[in-house]
């Protein structure tokens, strides 16, 4: 399983965090698309998100490892 954390507006769809199945060799892009399929209303906001793992932003072509916690990061709106 992979634990996925959500912030800001995305919590409205997913709550703070959910657990999803681990899929071998899944890229960040594919992972985001899988989330969008679970919750189609979130598909559009998800396209604007970045992903962080281990407190670092990762690239969309990276593959997601088992046992990692994934943080889905909507566009910043601080300040």
């Amino acid at each position, binding site marked *: 399983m992979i634990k996925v954390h959500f912030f800001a507006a995305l919590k409205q769809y997913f709550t703070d965090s959910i657990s999803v199945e681990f899929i071998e060799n899944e890229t960040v892009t594919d992972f985001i698309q899988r989330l969008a399929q679970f919750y189609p209303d979130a598909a559009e906001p998800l396209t604007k998100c970045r992903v962080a793992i281990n*407190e670092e932003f990762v690239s969309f072509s990276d593959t997601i490892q088992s046992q990692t916690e994934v943080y889905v990061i909507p566009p*910043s709106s601080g300040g």
Partner: protein
Amino acid sequence: MQHITQQEINVCAEYNKAKHPESGAIVMFSGDVRNHNKGQKVKYIDYEAYDALADKTIAKILTEAKEKWDLQYAECIHRIGKVGICETAVVVLVSSVHRKEAYDANRFIIDQVKALAPIWKHEFFEDGTSKWGANCDCASEDHEHLHHHH
């Protein structure tokens, strides 16, 4: 956690830390909660952050600013939680020998923090509605989700 705080930001104390005998210029930016946004009356903003990554992101931006410009001091602190009208949500302080670097670096830091740090504003309006914010230097229409609180 150096750059993210749940406490009120003591802007004067932060300014005093920027004083340096080699610096001829200090530029300070204070990003405050204002009572209006896109025609709506704002009551307060509740800021959420992915604290650990926001802190690291701000630290990196400050390091980058110090590499780009010759600065004696550069700091940025962002408050999270409920921030009232006129209160400071974020402060940026930069000290340098001449003023040009201080202005340029200060602006670079706040632009980068707003663009990159995982911090989100949740605006609460006088009419009882609330909205998760997008940074609105863009003039485009608002794509954000609007929902009522009961």
